[in-house]
């Protein structure tokens, strides 16, 4: 058997140009598919991690109270049970944020724009200062209670400069109309498309505008040491909250139709329930972004379709080439058969040759893809890139699951074997006499 494999391997070098061309076709197809797989592999974690930074947490706890006429009111009045549960859970917590937020219309000298304003404890959220780079103004100016930080784009749309007074039209937690007066304290560099929509103000003033007390807030964000610990930590915190006896919404509510994310399904369920006091819901960044998984699945499906389409084309080429190879080597096959090589041996020789070709091409394709990935990931697109959310610190990143790479190689080897099976079969069926008398 080793002799047959050796002959097959040696045969590959007999027509170097042809082998290189066929191998290159396979390598190109594998490279494209590997790049898509690598992009999809990092896409989900990059988006989740970037959203975690934007929203200041991997795990979130928000409180809801039923107001008059059964209207929901978002508020956390006393968080001692929540902080105790987080501590008791042993979750690897980097920091905890306490925020209130509203969506309102900023108005300045006849110009207006709708945006989200996050009220944060700016004196405690030091990481925000590190992440949010100011183009104009200073963090010291945030000591002013009515201070506001806007992104570059929003400030430009309003034509507002640091020191200007900007009105905001919004609603309180009860839905009453309210107007606030902010002083523009800083203009931040745009951090991607979602970063542009975020504006930051002092929690106390945002609370005042929302009609909440200074020590109250709406959402607790728990930032962990990494995305990987999110689900385990969330389950632990939920269990500790359950033990502490606070009112909790059920986790993992699923929509039967599949039209909603778990987070949307949770909100819908909440609208149907009735309770007294504050009831908490715990959710993770993964639940909020569960539709990302659908995008990853779509990318993987696209990669699989590309793989099949490319290989159907390549297979036609391989079948054709090996038919020619069989014809070229017909005398050689006759000699081998006359010397005692069985039909199976002839078939195996062709199949080995195809497998070596496929493996060589596939490995070259994966190596090429890794080189391209390395090259692309070294380019710094900057934190203000429109594709900021799918990148890691301004760089494109890739993750190729090893099993996926091995799977691709196996698929290619099998497809190549299928492509070669017909010419290999024909070669094996030749009788020595018939092969020896065939004129090329």
């Amino acid at each position: 058997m080793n002799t047959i494999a050796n002959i097959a391997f040696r045969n590959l070098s007999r027509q170097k140009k042809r082998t290189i061309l066929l191998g290159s076709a396979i390598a190109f197809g594998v490279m494209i598919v590997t790049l898509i797989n690598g992009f999809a592999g990092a896409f989900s974690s990059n988006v989740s991690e970037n959203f975690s930074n934007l929203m200041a947490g991997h795990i979130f706890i928000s409180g809801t109270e039923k107001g008059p006429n059964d209207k929901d009111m978002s508020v956390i009045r006393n968080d001692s049970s929540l902080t105790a549960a987080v501590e008791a859970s042993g979750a690897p917590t980097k920091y905890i944020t306490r925020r209130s937020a509203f969506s309102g219309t900023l108005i300045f000298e006849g110009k207006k724009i709708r945006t989200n304003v996050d009220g944060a404890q700016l004196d405690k959220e030091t990481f925000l200062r590190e992440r949010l780079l100011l183009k104009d103004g200073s963090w010291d100016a945030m000591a002013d209670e009515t201070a506001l930080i806007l992104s570059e784009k929003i400030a430009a749309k309003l034509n507002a400069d640091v020191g200007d007074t900007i009105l905001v039209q919004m609603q309180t937690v009860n839905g009453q109309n309210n107007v606030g007066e902010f002083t523009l304290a800083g203009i931040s560099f745009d951090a991607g498309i979602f970063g542009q929509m975020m504006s930051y103000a002092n929690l106390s003033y945002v609370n005042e505008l929302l009609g909440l007390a200074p020590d109250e807030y709406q959402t607790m964000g728990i930032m962990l040491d990494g995305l990987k610990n999110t689900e385990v930590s969330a389950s632990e915190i939920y269990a500790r909250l359950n033990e502490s006896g606070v009112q909790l919404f059920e986790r993992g509510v699923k929509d039967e139709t599949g039209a909603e994310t778990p987070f949307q399904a949770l909100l819908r369920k909440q609208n149907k329930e009735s309770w007294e006091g504050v009831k908490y819901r715990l959710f993770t960044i993964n639940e909020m972004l569960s539709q990302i998984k659908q995008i990853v699945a779509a990318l993987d499906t696209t990669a699989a379709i590309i793989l099949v389409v490319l290989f159907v084309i390549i297979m036609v080429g391989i079948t054709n080439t090996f038919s020619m190879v069989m014809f070229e080597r017909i005398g050689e096959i006759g000699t081998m058969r006359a010397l005692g090589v069985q039909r199976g041996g002839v078939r195996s020789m062709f199949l080995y040759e195809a497998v070596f070709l496929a493996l060589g091409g596939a490995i070259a394709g994966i190596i090429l893809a890794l080189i391209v990935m390395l090259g692309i990931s070294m380019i710094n697109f900057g934190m203000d890139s429109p594709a900021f959310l799918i990148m890691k610190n301004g760089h494109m990143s890739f993750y190729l699951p090893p099993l996926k790479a091995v799977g691709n190689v196996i698929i290619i080897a099998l497809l190549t074997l299928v492509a070669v099976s017909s010419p290999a079969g024909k070669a094996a069926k030749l009788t020595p006499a018939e092969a020896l008398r065939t004129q090329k």
Partner: protein
Amino acid sequence: MKRLIAATILAIAAAGSAAFAQDLPKILSTLDAQSDFTGKDFAAVYTIVSQKPGEKDTVSQVRMFRRDAKKQFAMLVVLPEVNKGQGYLREDDNVWFYDPTSRKFSFSSIKENIQNSEAKNSDLTRKSILDDYEVVGSKEGTVGKIAVWIIDLKARTNEVSYDRSVLYIRKDKTMLLKQEDYSVSGRLMRTMLFPKYVELEGRLMPSQILIIDELNLGERSQLTLTEQSLAILPDKVFTKAFLEQVNK
């Protein structure tokens, strides 16, 4: 003698003021009664012309059906053509919005603006000033040359859109001429003017309302009421099926 005259004037003013204070609930209940159609149904067409600086005027038209006894209303969007068929339905305190494109109902609010205008759903429904607000101040004044009572109101609950309203009510005939609505923070948000009234089965109701946005200067909406009717409406008008049916 001077002291006597001054004391007499003060006494008359105090008596007048006390009488006015006593009349306030009556004035406000008259206003409430003007917009309360309990015992009857009310239907009208509201045409809303909205002006925004640098933009073309937009015209919206809604057909409103009200049954105040049951806190119900159904509102059908007639104009603009692109939104035709959209509708709002109120059942008790729930307001539903119907989108004929998706054929779905979604939760809405009485505090929402109508078709991107300055008018809110609540402007077109029954109001109970006495239930929703308490009087925190009152004085006499004028709107143009017309003598008015100026009544300062503070919301009793947070169920109303505006925390504070100031009403300018004509003295000789209880008619609301002007209304100023303030935010929770105390900033004037909009001014409403009621220049035209019609009499409908013995009750006065505004037929034209001008709403001026005090935050976005130059933005205003004008509401005109036509085809007012107090005829009894079929029960099915106040159902989700009705909003779906009119789109078929």
